[in-house]
């Protein structure tokens, strides 16, 4: 398997959040990763967004590694990403692929950005002199940029770029560039990469709303897209976060959102899955900022089919007063004088609706990215009728070609949580094809030596004139040179340039400096500039020269202070030392033997680790046993058989049925569990990681006379009977299905996600077997998200009648002798009418199992709805906040079989990341305990969000589990007498810096 000539690298195409995540997963496994993007920077669409549903938070940074933190950057991802196993290839296209899974040769073409990235100092002079002005992509064209421009303003390295398409080659920029970084003869350089696997994370293109002329987009200034709205609401946007409508820069008093723009249409008969939710989020953002603004969402179905989504909708409606109006056939006109927009449509009852509003936001859908279409041609991938990637049955990440995987919106429209889940799963799939990584550790083992006397060297970068213009660097040099402990202070012109850096490095070595202060720009941040020498970076450009341009003496004074502060921090720094690591038990524990558990166990075993799988019931297989087909017509029985076979044949997997976890404790790398079988001795085991796959149950109900009449059954009972041949569809004349029985109600305020698909599946099957059967589906919102939309359409074409009901006007079921009667209020026809079905089928939804016992033992949380809580809803979707524990399948949230399987693979991948390491290595900056001072009050234990602090019962003092410590310092401020310390941020360092600041 691990032959020497097999590459251990992978290629990730598309460096949006999916690509970043996939690359990080592979890099953390020790593989080399090429992360390539056609753009000049990484980050994708997310750079343009500030926060996400359903919690309105930003958590991008949480995708960064938890272990061996020092190997990757420790700052906001908007500023960029550094990881020692990842090579970022920006402005790069794929031009050809040869070879096969395990051994691809990929040719790439990297176009010169016109500005040499190593030479560009980010001063922006090129942009100043550039005469060309075009719409700025970062702000969706709401602002202007030059042809020489900075594509991502938040990046640490402010590398400018030339827009070759618009550049007039006037060469003004070339003349003005202080480092001669510009070369307008933009060449394309070609390269060939040898990789074992390829991951496509090419994202989506936003639907071009101009193609749907009824919305007036681009014709009426006050009709904007959702992404444009995001930019208007963003602090980094063209209006710096003020919502001002384009026509007159006035704050709109009324805003209308129009859903399904470019989705659920004839041309694109799929649901883009994310728009309902992002519209809710944007509406909430507006309402929170401008409570007086009237905000209305016009929609067909509100698809809140995700974890916590329905509660989010209720918050929007009930707490913030956002209005929701169901409609169809929307149209937009405008008042040409005021530029106010007039929205008209047909209401659900067929009556016309009209609203005049100040601003209309189009919730534009996701379309396949042009890049994907192009690359997939080259790779010979198959695409579906909407041009998204076709994937294998029950997998959303495996393309039809071996060795090529997809994640995110390449295969179907989706939101961030699902995208990142797929990214982990795709990375796991890819890593199985790669040679075993050569260097698993790669962490810097630093020595504990430190010179007794500080000999600090101070380098002050002038950045050409960028810094000297605002402050006196000469004065700063002479000031620094006189400070105690400084043996050298000097000026350099461009510290960031490789040549300068090399000179400085030599100088440091020659003079025997023990500490370094580098005063310059933010691009220096987070880099290992001078080996392991203690280093302080002082940002005197972005943090000083560029923001205090008109007070030279004050700016110089401040710079002096900042140098003194940095020196104080260095003076009182503790010696660096060998980072501690804890040994990992290389065995995985999977709790729950349904499809998710089986699949997770298999994947962990495929990575070469032993797995113990615990199943409470007498047989594995779980809910999959009661699924007989899928809406898409895939063979779920074959899937079950395949899983069972592979698990039973895998020597690394031990299955314990009729067994429960009686005790479990420990932490990442070192869990200890005690299993109890029904008639056996307790079984003890150590595990390095735990995957929770305990599933959920079909809901039960007492509503609609369920249990009182044999003609009233649940969807799953219907499916069972159809599959077992216990029911003859020919004998049925009419059938009613009621959706949302117990879901999206007070007792369970969430959508169970799977019931609409199950109802469609069963209804279509019945129709196929008896076309004359009358089927009525009484629903609240039809959750046919993604490509399921087509089946919804097909169902209507086949005469299945969909009648919507309001939760306060539920259908009423009565049973007399032989007959059932269901009366329902039809909002379309505007009246109540009565049905007399032979059979009533209830979609009773998904209810969580009693997760409290396991959660209690593991000391982890469950959500308000009773499902296991993930560490971060979007960015760590399968991790639990307590490291080393992962959750997948129905234990996480309601989801269908394919979604559960991809989640299981993601969880297994995350678990394998731990199991594959001999030991877990912490960062340099971790907390520590002065045992003599510690009173054992446990305030630090309670303050630590990671369980990295525990009390040593014998000594009565707190301990730090260094591998888990993330270096946040919460324990330090909780500790009253500073028995807790954070390395690199000790009290002495901070107090000394503070002294210098004053």
């Amino acid at each position, binding site marked *: 398997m691990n032959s020497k000539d097999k590459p251990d690298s992978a290629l990730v195409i598309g460096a949006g959040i999916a690509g970043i995540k996939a690359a990080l997963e592979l890099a953390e496994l020790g593989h080399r990763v090429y992360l390539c993007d056609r753009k000049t920077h990484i980050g994708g669409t997310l750079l343009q967004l500030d926060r996400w549903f359903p919690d309105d938070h930003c958590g991008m*940074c949480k995708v960064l590694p938890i272990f061996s933190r020092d190997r990757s950057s420790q700052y906001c991802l908007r500023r960029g990403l550094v990881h020692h196993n990842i090579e970022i290839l920006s402005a790069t296209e794929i031009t050809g692929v040869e070879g096969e899974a395990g051994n691809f040769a990929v040719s790439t073409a990297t176009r010169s950005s016109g500005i040499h990235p190593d030479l560009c100092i980010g001063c922006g002079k090129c942009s100043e002199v550039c005469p060309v002005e075009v719409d700025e992509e970062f702000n969706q064209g709401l602002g202007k940029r030059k042809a020489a421009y900075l594509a991502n303003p938040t990046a640490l390295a402010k590398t400018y770029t030339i827009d070759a398409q618009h550049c007039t080659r006037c060469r003004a920029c070339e003349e003005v560039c202080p480092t001669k970084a510009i070369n307008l003869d933009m060449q394309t350089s070609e390269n060939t990469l040898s990789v074992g696997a390829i991951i496509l994370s090419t994202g989506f293109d936003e639907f071009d709303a101009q193609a749907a002329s009824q919305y007036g987009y681009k014709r009426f200034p006050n009709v904007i897209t959702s992404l444009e709205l995001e930019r208007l609401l963003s*602090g980094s946007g063209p209006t710096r976060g003020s919502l001002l409508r384009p026509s007159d820069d006035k704050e709109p008093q009324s805003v209308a959102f129009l859903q399904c723009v470019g989705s659920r249409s004839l041309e694109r008969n799929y649901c883009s899955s994310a728009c309902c939710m992002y519209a809710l989020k944007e509406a909430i953002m507006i309402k929170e900022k401008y409570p007086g603004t009237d905000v209305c969402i016009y929609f067909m179905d509100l698809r809140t089919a995700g974890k916590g989504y329905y509660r989010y909708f209720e918050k929007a409606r009930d707490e913030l007063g956002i209005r929701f109006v169901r409609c169809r056939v929307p149209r937009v006109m405008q008042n040409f004088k005021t530029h106010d927009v007039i929205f008209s449509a047909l209401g659900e009852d067929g009556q016309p609706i009209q609203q005049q509003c100040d601003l209309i936001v189009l919730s534009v859908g996701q379309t396949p990215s042009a890049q994907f279409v192009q690359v997939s041609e080259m790779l010979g991938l198959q695409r579906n009728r909407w041009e998204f990637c076709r994937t294998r049955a029950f997998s959303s990440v495996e393309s039809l070609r071996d060795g090529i995987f997809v994640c995110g919106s390449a295969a179907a429209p989706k939101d961030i949580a699902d995208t990142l889940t797929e990214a982990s799963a795709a990375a796991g799939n890819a890593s199985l094809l790669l040679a075993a990584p050569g260097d698993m550790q790669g962490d810097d083992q630093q020595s504990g030596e430190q010179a007794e006397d500080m000999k600090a060297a101070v380098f002050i970068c002038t950045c050409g004139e960028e810094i000297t213009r605002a402050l006196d660097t000469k004065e700063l040099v002479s000031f620094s040179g006189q400070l105690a402990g400084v043996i050298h202070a000097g000026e350099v012109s461009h510290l960031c340039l490789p040549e300068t850096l090399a000179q400085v490095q030599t100088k440091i070595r020659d003079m025997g400096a023990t500490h370094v202060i580098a005063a310059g720009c933010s691009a220096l941040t987070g880099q290992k500039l001078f080996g392991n020498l203690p280093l302080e970076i002082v940002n005197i450009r*972005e943090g000083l020269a*560029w923001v205090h341009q008109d007070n030279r003496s*004050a700016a110089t*004074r401040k710079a002096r202070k900042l140098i003194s502060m940095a020196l104080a921090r260095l003076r009182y720094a503790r010696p660096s030392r060998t980072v501690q690591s804890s040994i990992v038990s290389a065995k995985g524990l999977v709790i729950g033997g349904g499809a998710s558990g089986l699949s997770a166990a298999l994947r962990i075993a495929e990575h070469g680790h032993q797995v113990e799988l615990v199943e409470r019931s007498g047989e594995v297989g779980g809910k999959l046993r009661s699924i007989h087909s899928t809406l898409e017509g895939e063979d779920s029985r074959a899937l079950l058989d395949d899983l069972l076979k592979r698990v039973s044949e895998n020597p690394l997997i031990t299955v314990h049925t009729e067994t429960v976890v009686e005790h479990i404790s420990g932490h990442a790398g070192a869990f200890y569990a005690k299993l109890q079988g029904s008639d056996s001795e307790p079984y003890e085991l150590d595990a390095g990681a735990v995957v929770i796959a305990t599933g959920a149950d079909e809901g039960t109900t007492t509503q609609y006379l369920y249990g009182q009449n044999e003609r009233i059954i649940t969807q799953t009972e219907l499916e069972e009977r159809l599959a077992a041949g216990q029911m003859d569809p020919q004998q049925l004349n009419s059938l009613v299905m009621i959706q949302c029985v117990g879901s999206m109600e007070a007792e369970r305020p969430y959508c169970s996600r799977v019931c609409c698909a199950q109802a469609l599946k069963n209804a279509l099957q019945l129709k196929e077997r008896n076309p004359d059967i009358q089927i009525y589906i009484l629903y609240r919102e039809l959750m046919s998200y993604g490509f399921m939309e087509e089946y919804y359409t097909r169902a209507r074409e086949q005469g299945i009648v969909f009648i919507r009901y309001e939760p306060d006007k539920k259908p009423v079921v009565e049973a007399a002798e032989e007959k059932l009667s269901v009366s329902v209020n039809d909002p379309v026809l505007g009246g109540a009418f009565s049905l007399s079905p032979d059979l009533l089928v209830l979609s009773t939804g998904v209810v969580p199992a009693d997760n409290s016992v396991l959660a209690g033992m593991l000391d982890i949380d469950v959500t308000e709805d009773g499902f296991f809580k993930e560490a971060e809803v979007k960015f760590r979707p399968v991790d639990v906040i307590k490291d080393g524990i992962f959750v997948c399948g129905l234990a996480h949230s309601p989801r269908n079989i394919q979604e559960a399987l991809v989640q299981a693979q993601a969880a297994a991948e995350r678990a394998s990341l731990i199991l594959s390491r001999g030991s877990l290595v912490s960062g340099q900056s971790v907390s520590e305990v002065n045992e003599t001072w510690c009173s054992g009050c446990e305030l630090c234990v309670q303050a630590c*969000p990671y369980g990295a602090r525990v009390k040593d019962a014998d000594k009565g003092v707190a301990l730090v589990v260094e591998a888990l410590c993330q270096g946040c310092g*919460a324990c330090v401020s909780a500790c009253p007498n500073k028995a807790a310390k954070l390395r690199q941020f000790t*009290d002495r360092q901070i107090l000394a810096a503070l002294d210098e*600041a004053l």
Partner: protein
Amino acid sequence: MADDNKDFEPILVGFFCNWCTSTAADLAGTTRLQYPPNIRPIRTMCSGSVDPIYILRALLSGADGIIIGGCNPGDCHYVSGNYKARRRIAGLKTILDTLGLENDRVWLKWISAAEGQKFAVTMRDFTEKIKELGPSPFRKNWSV
């Protein structure tokens, strides 16, 4: 009072978290948003690691204003550091307020990574408000 303070340049100390507020500060720089140079930033990994004792020490040593900048509620890289910070500041400011010890000189602000503008505006407001308050009485008091 206002006239006396015209030439008064307050000494301001900022504890800014590594993740959000420091990114915003950088963004303010990239966008060349101007703000007064009085602020002396001290980078901490998290607002939750800012011990009130640092703030007290700064105040008593003569800083005219102290500002803590962290991620928006819910955005904390370390899950809940900013919530903890808010509680600590609530306790500390209550004490300062009760004892008449310049509570208004201590600010807590959430500034997200994308909010370069908010960073600059906050620094301007902060400097201005502290200028209005005048020099801290601790500045010249050697007997604290």
